[in-house]
């Protein structure tokens, strides 16, 4: 369980980082908190020639408040979000999500950008940023683009990131004061990845409703928002939503995902 021999650099500008990524032809990997990449290196599931540490790039490290949204640098750790200013509604929700990820030692190093780029179907940020309607700013050698969290993830452990691209920012629309958030994940033990999860946002003031199922075998599933939440929470609707995934027909998976949706809806509507 030792990684292959690789080089390591820690650039201090975004341009230098994407240049290095572009040169590698796939044998260069970005690294942030190494909480997902580290085990993969040790298991030799990833055998890079070069690691580009992105945690010294200023654009990735800050959090700022804008009128319509909260902008989080991709290199911000779960722990910093957990410790954020909870008097502000959006940040309070982010803090609540962050506090449920793994345990503090992992949160101290793991980052929101790393979590999204890794795209483990069971990851908290994946399902939550999708439910919050967040956007990601991606920067590569060819320039920058903005994509929604929902479309960013293509499948299990698969995203639309090009080899030379980095996630730079995660932009979360500000929640209105009266918005309701519900998030439930089923973990066999605390700090473990979820067996099922669901996130629900009801933001009447902005006319935004979303219910997302996570911890499937693929990308988070956004349920049809034209249907009432009570209907989405039914086992039949969940079974239908899971039918295109590898979990189709899995009685246990359908049952616990349906329970997760029910509980997230309950939390968001109670």
């Amino acid at each position, binding site marked *: 369980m*030792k990684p292959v021999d690789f080089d390591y650099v820690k650039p201090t500008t975004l341009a230098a980082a994407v240049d290095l990524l572009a040169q590698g032809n796939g044998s260069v990997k970005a690294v942030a908190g190494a909480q997902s990449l580290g085990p993969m290196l040790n298991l030799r599931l990833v055998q890079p020639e070069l690691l580009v540490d992105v945690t010294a790039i200023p654009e990735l490290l800050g959090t700022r408040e804008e009128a319509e949204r909260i902008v989080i640098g991709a290199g911000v750790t779960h722990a910093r979000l957990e410790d954020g200013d909870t008097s502000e509604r959006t940040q309070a929700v982010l803090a609540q999500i962050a506090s449920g990820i793994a345990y503090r030692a992992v949160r101290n190093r793991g980052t929101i950008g790393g979590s999204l780029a890794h795209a483990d179907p069971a990851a908290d940020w994946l399902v939550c940023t999708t439910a919050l309607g967040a956007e990601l700013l991606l920067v590569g050698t060819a320039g920058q683009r903005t994509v929604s969290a929902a479309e960013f993830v293509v499948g299990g452990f698969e995203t639309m990131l090009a080899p030379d691209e980095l996630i730079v920012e995660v932009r979360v629309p500000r929640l209105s004061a009266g918005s309701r958030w519900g998030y439930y994940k089923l973990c*066999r*033990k605390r700090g473990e990845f979820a067996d099922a999860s669901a996130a629900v946002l009801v933001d009447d003031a902005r006319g935004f409703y979303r219910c997302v199922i996570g911890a499937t075998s693929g990308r988070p599933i956004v349920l049809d928002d034209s249907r009432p939440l009570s209907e989405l929470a039914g086992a039949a609707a969940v079974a239908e939503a899971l039918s295109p995934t590898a979990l189709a027909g899995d009685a246990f998976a359908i049952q616990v995902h349906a329970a997760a949706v029910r509980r997230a809806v309950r939390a968001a509507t109670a």
Partner: protein
Amino acid sequence: MFGVGARVRRKEDDRLLRGRGRFVADIALVGMRELAFVRSPVAHARILSFDIPEQVRRQVFTWQDLEPAGVRPIRAASGLPGFKVSEQPPLAADKVRFAGEPIAVTVAATRAEAEDIASQVIAEFDELPPNVDMLAAAAPGAPCVHEHWSDNIFLETRVGQSFEKDVAAAPVRISRSIRTQRQCIVPLEGKGLVAHWDRQAEQLVLYTATQMPHIVRSGLSECLGLPLEAIRVIAPDVGGGFGWKGLLQPEEVVAAWLCLHLGCPLRWMEDRREHLVAAANAREHHYEITAYADADGRLLGVDADAWVDAGAYSIYPFSACLEAAQVGSILPGPYDFPHYRCRTFSVCTNKPPIVPFRGVARANVCFAMEQIIDAIAAAVGREAWEVRLLNLVPPEKMPFDNITGKHFDSGDYPESLRRAVAGIDLASVRRRQLQGEPDGRLVGVGFATYCEQGAHGTAVYHGWGIPMVPGYEQVQARITADGGLELRAGIQSHGQGMETSFAQVAHEVLGIPLERIRLVHGDTGLTPYSTGTWGSRSMVMAGGAVATACRRLADRLRRIAAHLLQARLEDVTLSGGMLQSGQADITIAEIARTWYLAPQLLPADVDPGGLEITAGYKPKSDHGTFSYATHAAVVAVDAEVGLVEILDYLVVEDAGTMVNPAIVEGQIFGGVAQGIGTALYECSPYDDAGQPMASTLMDYLLPGFTEVPAIRIEHMETPSPYTEFGVKGLGEGGVIAPSAVLCNAINDALKARGAVVTDQPVTPARILAALRNARAEPPP
């Protein structure tokens, strides 16, 4: 205040808790190189060839290198009639028999480089059908793991006669199929070793994370053909063993030979993945049980077939059959009933060899038997504890020889149950169940009672005929010239706090302060022979030897004191480290100084053995001590998602006289935590190709501190009539009952919905499946 019974802090914790211990991984020798093992990627295959790139050829070794040099396979036969012998070459010879089996070893300056080389070693296999499930492997026609055998059964044992006609009229007949899962042992510190040749001592020195250095030494001697005096095995600080460090390991043989061959120190540290794959080696049993009872729930007979998945090879020294054979003798548990028949099968499969894990076989039979008791209770419409009470061996029958000839030494089993029922407040749980929970969860309560044979000696082990039979346990005790005490014992303390508890025993006899008593253990060069630390034996056996040695030292001290104090021997007393006669007194330190530095003052007839003694000890009966306990738990089951929360956990235990209650409690806490793992989390499943499915800690779930509740312990203290101070072995007890208790509690919670779970671990998926089945077929 510091002797037997005192709740003193552990001496060793100062170094261990500050990270100042010395474990194998802390040992670095000049010129030391690192090993990596190439492990079989397939479960069952003939090895056709190796493809090793030329540039690394000299850093790779296979059986083709070891065998011509005279290395012999590991062989652990049992003398039980019918036992089939397996031979395990420490690197696979012509055939691999489980995924993870070492097939080659690589040497390099660093582990990473050794792994680089390992990844270039390619073996070509001719794959054979694997034996993955023990029942299929035991069936006629299954492909043989060892081709010269006639089937895949290491050993079949039979206890008792069939008794159908005696119970034909029994009003209650319960049949159950019960499975317990394959587990890894997962000590905090994995296996590890450093091997080197000590040129001055002309000895092979093996530092290894082991529970039994003397046995490893014997095994190495057999495999390497070296005389014992040319081998020294040292267990430094060891971070937990639980059985995984109670055997001779192939890696030890390979590293020892290779260090002699290469002439340089070598190190191998097992990593977590190696552990989870190559050491998925414990607890996998299958039971088919039928129990008969009368209308009150009194047991009339138990009829069982039990299979143990023993894996591919017989391990040294315990062999492949110890676990199943023990099942036959301990399945009746703490109960008294008239009819019993049990057949057991140690089945050879294409999985890692089974290793006796803490509470070996005991945790499994408790799980099986205690489910049966609950099922009988349900059938006769009584509380499960009432049925237990009806069947437990009562105190007035102690000592008691049970149906398989186990000699229960002492205790009040029913009282532990009554106290558990009161302590868990059964009545209030029943009320709570009637009211229902505000959050909709289902609450349940469960009990399990067991008795645990520990510290079994010659009388038990000679019958197994395995490469190790414990005899007299020896301890050497030496008073130093300044009045300190050195104890040397061949056991090994790897978390049990023996540096403290043995000092307490010595203090009890000699009165020397604890801080002046030192235990040297785990080093074959410095300690008397011992089979090591296993089977809850060290406190009873080596602790007894400490007391014996110290008493004999006390006698010698008194004789010298009588002379120096000019008193009659019978008037000299020893207490508090002081020898007294009337007004005159002298300290142990003064006597020691006299022996070592002023021998001219000694009496003419002084014992020339001086202040140093090696004493051997065996209890009056070495059939083993029997600790016992009742565990009780209250759980809340979330029937929507299958999660279980442990609301309360109570242990009412009796392990005889406690040398140090804090250490006793520590053993129980740790054991219960492991038992919770067995009950709810841990499992090493295999796919149809014999591939282990849990190869990282993401898949192999262990309970963390958030999953282990505050455990309440109540002590009872019935001394054993046979041992020093009346102590009993207790190191394994905590782990025996939790899976039974939690399963029973979960079933009590699910009862309202007509659902029953019977297999471990009780996962959310199993709970929800049981609920779905119950809905599909409503109970009669």
